Every structure is written in structure tokens, then in C-alpha cells.
């Protein structure tokens, strides 16, 4: 260690690694965050600016094409659907629902994953075996099928969708946490903290949890796209949100029968969904490249 690594020392002292890695993927991160932020703004303020009433029916303005005008002379940017609701307003409301569900499901699955991962990685033994076999079994089962199964049992509601999506999403978080816990467990600084008399919770909090931060950020960004997509799929199948809280999935499903005559009802929310999911994917990849190249391929 001492005098041998003159080279390594030279580099270490001149460029702290923490600052060196801050360069990769900045363009991708800023770009994708801008897209996400735009969606978030639409979800937050859109429904305030464009009032949307899920039960209002306006038969005079049914199935207007994008960029046409209503009988009252308002411009409908994205057209209207079969009951005359403004698609833009409906989509903004949908963004609110979809993103709320996505973030809630993400937080819940992250929490479950964190707890299970620490139990498995830090305490190990039979608990580790049980939890990881459970994870294996769940991974062997297609996620969306599991979600459909549970959703069918629980019935459609926003809360249920969140629960369903969290259950299918905890495994990745648990695996990463377990990996970090295992890697940290035998570090000398953990021993040093133990010698001070620290109890397990203190060691976990100060040594393991901080090391999970970067990988969690990466996985969250990669995962949230999947969650939003899964929510849309469930809603599309009628197992997600009820029609009174229209998410993108429900909106897309609503246009299913009119694809040949009013393509925009399904296509525009579909495109909006795709752009958001791709933005999250790019963000996740860029974060991964920046913080943890080892995670590649997960």
C-alpha cells in the first residue's frame, strides 16, 4: 500500500474519484429530466388550467379530430373522444393518475425491497434463503401475469393498482440492497463502527443505507417506466384504475374500437406514454453509467 502505488497516489491526489465521475451522461440526464419535468408540470398544473369532468358528456363535440374547433369555437389540440371530452384535458388528468401511481408503487416497492434486502443480506442465514427463493419464484413468473392475477382478485381501484405493482417490483430493489449489505458487511469500517459499540440498526443506517443511494436512484429511474407501462397495461385490460379516474391506460383502451375512424383517441396518449417511458429509460441508463457501471445489464 505504502510506497508502491506512487502512480495511483498521483492520480488519487490530483483528481478525487467523487468528482471525476461527475461527467458522464450529463446531456442525457439533463435532456431526459427536462422531458420528465415537462410531464410532471402538465400533471400538476394541467388539470387546473383545463378543467376535466370525467362524467360530462358533450354530444355535439364528439370525435373531433386534432386541431379542430368545438361548437363553442375552442381549439381542441388533440381532438375529442366519443363522448366529447377534450383529449388534452383527459390526458393531463391521466398523467396525474399515472404518475401518482408510478411514484407511489415505486416508493412502496423500494421500501419493501430495502427491508427484505437488508434482512436477507445483513442477517443472512435461513432468512436470506427464504427471501431470495421467494424472489426467484416471483422472477420466474411473468410480472404482468402476476399483476393481472392479483388485480383480478382485488378489483380495480387506484390503491389496489399501487399494491399490485409494488408486489411485482420489489425484487430488483431487494437484490441490490442485499448485494450492498453483503458487500458492506465485511468492510473494515463496519468493524470500526462496531467496536465503538454501535448496534446493528446504527451500522445499517450509517454504513449500508448510504451505499444503496446511488444504485437505488438508477433502478428507480429504470423501473418507473416499467411501472407506468404496467399500470397502463392493467388499465387497458380493465383491471387498473376505474373509468372515473382515467389513466392513460383507460384512455387508450377507450379508443380501441374506434381506431379506424378516430385514431387519435388511442394513438396520442400512446405516444405520450411511449415518450415518457423512453425518457425514464434514458435517464436510468445515464444515471447507471454515471454512478455504477457495474450495474449494467440489470
Amino acid at each position, binding site marked *: 500500500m*505504502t510506497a508502491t502505488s506512487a502512480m495511483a497516489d498521483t492520480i488519487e491526489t490530483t483528481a478525487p*474519484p*467523487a468528482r471525476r465521475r461527475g461527467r458522464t451522461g450529463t446531456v442525457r440526464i439533463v435532456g431526459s429530466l427536462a422531458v420528465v419535468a415537462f410531464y410532471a408540470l402538465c400533471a400538476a398544473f394541467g388539470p387546473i388550467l383545463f378543467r376535466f369532468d370525467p362524467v360530462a358528456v358533450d354530444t355535439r363535440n364528439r370525435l373531433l379530430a386534432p386541431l379542430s374547433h368545438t361548437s363553442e369555437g375552442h381549439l381542441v389540440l388533440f381532438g375529442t373522444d366519443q363522448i366529447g371530452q377534450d383529449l388534452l384535458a383527459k390526458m393531463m388528468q391521466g398523467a396525474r393518475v399515472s404518475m401518482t401511481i408510478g411514484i407511489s408503487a415505486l416508493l412502496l416497492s423500494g421500501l419493501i425491497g430495502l427491508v427484505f434486502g437488508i434482512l436477507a443480506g445483513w442477517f443472512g442465514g435461513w432468512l436470506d434463503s427464504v427471501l431470495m427463493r421467494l424472489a426467484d419464484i416471483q422472477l420466474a413468473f411473468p410480472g404482468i401475469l402476476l399483476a393481472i392475477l392479483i388485480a383480478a382478485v382485488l378489483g380495480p381501484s387506484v390503491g389496489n393498482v399501487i399494491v399490485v405493482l409494488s408486489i411485482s417490483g420489489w425484487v430488483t430493489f431487494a437484490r441490490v440492497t442485499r448485494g450492498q449489505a453483503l458487500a458492506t458487511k465485511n468492510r473494515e469500517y463496519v468493524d470500526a463502527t462496531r467496536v*465503538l*459499540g454501535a448496534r446493528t440498526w446504527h451500522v445499517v443506517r*450509517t454504513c449500508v443505507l448510504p451505499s444503496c443511494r446511488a444504485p437505488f436512484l438508477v433502478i428507480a429511474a429504470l423501473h418507473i417506466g416499467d411501472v407506468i407501462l404496467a399500470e397502463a397495461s392493467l388499465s387497458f385490460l380493465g383491471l387498473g384504475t376505474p373509468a372515473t379516474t382515467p389513466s392513460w391506460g383507460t384512455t387508450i383502451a377507450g379508443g380501441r374500437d374506434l381506431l379506424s375512424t378516430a385514431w387519435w383517441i388511442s394513438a396520442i396518449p400512446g405516444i405520450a406514454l411511449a415518450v415518457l417511458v423512453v425518457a425514464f429509460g434514458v435517464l436510468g441508463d445515464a444515471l447507471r453509467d454515471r454512478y455504477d457501471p457495474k450495474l449494467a445489464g440489470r
Partner: protein
Amino acid sequence: MNPMPAPSDESGTAVAGPPLLSVRDLVTSFPIRSTLLRREIGRIEAVAGVSFDLPAGQTLGIVGESGSGKSTLARTVVGLARARAGSVTFDGTDLTAAAPAEVRRRRRDIQMIFQDPYASLNPGRTVRQLVTEAWQIHPDVVPRDRWPAELAELLARVGLDPGHADRYPHQFSGGQRQRIGIARAIALRPRLVICDEPVSALDVSIQAQVLNLLRDLQRDLGLTYLFISHDLSVVRHVADRVAVLYLGRIVEEAPTAEIFAAPTHPYTQALLSAVPRLRPWRETAPEPIVLAGDIPSPANPPSGCRFRTRCPRAEDVCAIEPPALTIRGTHPAACHFAG
């Protein structure tokens, strides 16, 4: 820092009370597991029956090569490894038998300085967090409103700039990091400090700084050191007594001057003769004893005397009868032919 326990008697001869640390027949072992089913198929006795006493205010040097079990011994005393047999008695309390709460309370008085100043500090925490962590864990040591003052005093005591308290470990050099480690170790005002190779990762010029610091702290705070090292010159410099460890057992134990002047165990003799001298031309060195081969695996130690496979003086009896560590000549040695 607030007043510490009274400094010990410098000469170390007047006070002959009970030892602060007393280790008896200590065994620490690790399971060997089969690769397939993870069944236990044997045990490695890294520490295989070690006994010693350490009076308060003194420094006992534990010398050994890799595989001697010296680090495991340190980890057992400090509670990071579990003793399988024997006892570790600290200030009258047997830590291997006492109730967990009592052990936890007692262990606060036993702290450790680690070998690697890079690995032993959590890279994500500032110096302030690292040091005050000790007070956070034991809230009764320093009241929270005294933290900044105590921290500044502690950092100054170990030779760090208190103004650097909010820096991270990677912003310090190896020697400075080791000072952070030392500050952490003495933050709880321990009575016994286990130094596990505290300077072997440091540059020579920095080693001397840290050794001097350890010596000053011992004098000022009345600390007792269990000083583990593979470097005999360092041990010679800091220790009052030296115990030489080979394959989990003490082969010789004596006051430092005595063991360096007149080692009686063949292993100690070989070890001492292998140390490169700084100015070999100034002294008439005895013909170096170069040992054959390597230290055997602790999973399968030799029968009888554990050193016999490499010993130039081994005879038939050594394979049959393990030599006891008893006084042979002037001090204890575990060799049939010592003394």
C-alpha cells in the same frame, strides 16, 4: 478532553495490582464448510490456546507473521470475533461469560486502531460525523452541547487541524487518516486500546509521527496498549513486553529488552535474525537463520510442537509432545530445548 484516568506509573514496577486484561486459554476458531452443502467439515483454530496478562498502563506487543492468528486475537479481545473457549477478563469481568448488557458497557473501555486507514473509515462520512458517532452511540460520555468543543480538542490532540472537521476521509493523506482513526478510538476515553498494525500501511516518515503520537497519548491518558505487529523494530520501540505468536500459540514471552537480547525459542531467533538492520556494517550480526518453507495451514497444524516442521533443532519428541509455555531460563518459552 476531560480528565482521563490517572496516568500509570511510568516505570511500571511499583503498581502490581491485578492485570487490566487477562486472557486465559483463548481459542477462536472458524468453521470450514464444504463447498456443496455448506456443512461444517472442520474448524480452523486461528487462536489455539493463548494466555497472557496485560497490566494497566503498559504495552504488550504481539508479534507474528501472517497466519499466526495475531489479528484474530485482536478481534476476539475487542469482540469482533467470538471466543470458542477460554476467557478474556477485562478489569475483573470475564467478557466471554458476562451478561450482554454488562459486556457492552465494558467494551466501551476497549477500543481499536485498525491497520488500513483507507478501509477503516466510512468514505461517506465527514471527520466530524466519524468522531461524534462514538458519542452518539454512547450518549452519556459527552453531552451534545459539548460535542464541538470536545471534537476540536480531540482533533488537536491527535495532530489534526480542527478546522478540517467537515472534510471527508479521501481529502486526507494516509497518515492523517490514521490520526482520524486514532481520534475515533480514544473518543470514548477507553482504558485499553488494541492497535492492530497501526503503522504498517504508512510511509516510514509518517510511521514515526504516529508512533510518537501513540506514545504521547499513552503517557497523557494512561492508556494500555495491546500492540499487534509483524514489524519487530516497531514493536521493540513501543512495547514493554513482547509475546511471539506462531500458528495460534504463543511461543515465547518476555520483557522487550530481554527477548531482543536473548531469544530462547528457535522461531524467535529466526524471526529476529531475519529483520534487516538499518546499518548492518556497524554490528557483527550472527549468521542469519533462514527458515525453510512457509507457515503451515492452521487448518491442519503439525502434531506436537507446531513449529517443528520448520525448526532447525527439531527432534523426535517435538512431533509427539507439544511443549508448554513455561519459564525456561529467564522467561516463558514453548520449546523443549529452550533456556
